[in-house]
């Protein structure tokens, strides 16, 4: 199995100095963005793009590394959103920077939920797992709608927001919060990727029964990956709730949010570090633009569906693995000639 894994790992990690330089450049660009382009329309797109970078990266820790496709990660997104929202409302937190401190608590709540959901859902495999995660997402949506006394039900939940932040600055704190979470997600993903734990996850993806046979504690590993992934998604959900200031059950426990992060990870390359980032950067601004321009006619859904189908049929392995393959082939060709 190791013989099978190593070349693949090298193929994905071995981008060399190009990668280091590029990453540094991207990080600086991301940090300076609100200063260079401060108008709210741009920063709004930036907030959502960075949000999806974080979501797709977090999803990839479970879906990409272990091969367990969860279509219900919006359950944790919504749980984090409601978790933070309810804390802000009931603890009478003054809006400002304070609520951001509670974001990790929202993540912890989502992690606890993920322990419960994962314990049940991870008894199933493959297709059944996909469906069970969808079912759990709808359970959460129903709970948010029905526990009216706690959540406000279908009427939604309003969060306090800071009146001190205005104009061009309003989006900035949220942008940096999202950026921090995306960076955290990428760091965790990178760290897992090169740890023994990560190797175990990849082994589960390649052949779970064999992984178990060679001594990988598959149940514990899968659950851990699931919980880490959910905690990150929950924190991002919390920041999202604070950003949009008003949340409704069907818009945070939204199947489209769950599927979007999956599609972005698929487009970029499942199980790679940069794949989810590339997928999110390519898709989210386009999605926002089309929803804005064609939203009323519902045609944007047709567009989204077409992109989706083209990606899967033409690049079933995603951009990063396909490009890496291409580069490798070119390199071997030059070596030969």
């Amino acid at each position: 199995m190791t013989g099978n894994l190593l070349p693949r790992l090298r193929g994905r990690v071995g981008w060399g100095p190009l990668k280091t330089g590029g990453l540094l450049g991207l990080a600086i660009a991301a940090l300076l963005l609100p200063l260079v382009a401060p108008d709210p329309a741009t920063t709004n797109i930036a907030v959502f793009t960075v949000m999806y970078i974080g979501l797709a990266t977090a999803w990839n820790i479970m879906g990409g590394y272990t091969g367990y496709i969860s279509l219900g990660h919006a359950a944790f997104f919504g749980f984090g959103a409601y978790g933070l929202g309810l804390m802000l409302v009931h603890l009478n937190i003054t809006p400002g920077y304070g609520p951001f401190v509670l974001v990790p608590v929202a993540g912890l709540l989502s992690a606890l939920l993920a322990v419960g959901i994962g314990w049940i859902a991870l008894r199933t495999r493959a297709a059944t797992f996909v469906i069970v995660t969808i079912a759990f997402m709808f359970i959460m949506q129903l709970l948010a709608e029905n526990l009216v006394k706690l959540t406000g039900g279908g009427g939604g939940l309003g969060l306090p927001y800071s009146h001190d932040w205005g104009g061009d600055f309003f989006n900035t704190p949220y942008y940096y919060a999202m950026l921090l979470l995306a960076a955290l997600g990428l760091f965790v993903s990178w760290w897992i990727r090169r740890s023994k734990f990560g190797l175990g996850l990849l082994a589960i993806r390649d052949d779970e029964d064999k992984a178990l046979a060679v001594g990988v504690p598959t149940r514990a590993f899968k659950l851990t990956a699931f919980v880490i992934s959910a905690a990150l998604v929950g924190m991002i959900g919390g920041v999202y709730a604070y950003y949009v200031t008003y949340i409704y059950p069907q818009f945070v426990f939204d199947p489209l949010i769950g599927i979007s992060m999956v599609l972005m990870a698929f487009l970029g390359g499942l199980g790679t570090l940069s794949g989810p980032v590339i997928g999110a950067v390519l898709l989210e601004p386009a999605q926002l633009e089309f929803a804005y321009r064609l939203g009323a006619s519902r045609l944007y859904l047709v567009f989204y569906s077409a992109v989706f189908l083209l990606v899967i049929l033409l690049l079933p392995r995603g951009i990063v693995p396909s490009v890496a393959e291409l580069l490798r082939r070119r390199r071997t060709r030059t070596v030969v000639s």
Partner: protein
Amino acid sequence: MTLVLEAAALGILTGGVYALMASGLTLIFGVMRIINVGQGALVILGAYLSFAFFRSWHLDPLLTLIITMPLMFGLGVILQIVFIRPLKTDREALSVLVTYALALGIEGALGYVFTTNYVQLRAWYETASFAVLGFHITYVYVFGFVLCIAILGALFLVLYRTSYGAALRATMLNRTAAQLVGVDVDRVSAIAFGIGVATAAAGGVVFGITNSFNPGSHYDLISRLLTIIVLGGLGSLRGAIIAALIMLVTEDITAVVISPVWATFVFFVILVAVLIFRPQGLFGVRVRERI
């Protein structure tokens, strides 16, 4: 008590419709090992097709099936050939995404053509009812139930009494072995997908008479259909039918005894409880291979 019995009876009658829609879904899974997340959208598409014929030609909604079922069968065959057959690796995961994309596309196109306003199919039997033992039962539920039983019966006949059915069951049991003994599995798969989509057309008509719907209605529908086939056991036709009845009966009884808003929730709780003890569902076979 009377209310509970009435709810149970209604649950069984409407359960027949869900059994039909879910049987198409589980059949597709059984043959191709793919989850058709677009089944809900196809049901809504079927409902809208009937709605279009009903609106322009004033046909009786149930009669439109004579046109819509073959149309949807053809659409299913085309969808399978264009979108499902090219998937060679990682079929199961990719198929979920492909069919989800199809669902979005159908939703978007329907929204463009028919707008997102709710519509409903109208017929005389939609409100007219008759009394049995003091219960009032609306004709549409009985008609829908009879229609679904007839189609399910025909499906079982095809599966167990024809050579195509034998080839299809062989493909479900072991795709490679079926191929080795000379079954054209590509053809079997395309036709099975067509049949699955045709059942969506039939389900759509009954759904469209008993519910008002819009292009976004498929989310609710697909989450129900998927949980039904998981409870029944993926790929089991018998399981899908029994699970559909369990779902609708519990929902209708919960709606009467507790509250309509908790109806679906109780079914989800049953599903979770079953999965703890039987992860493969009621009639499912435990998956050992990695798909």
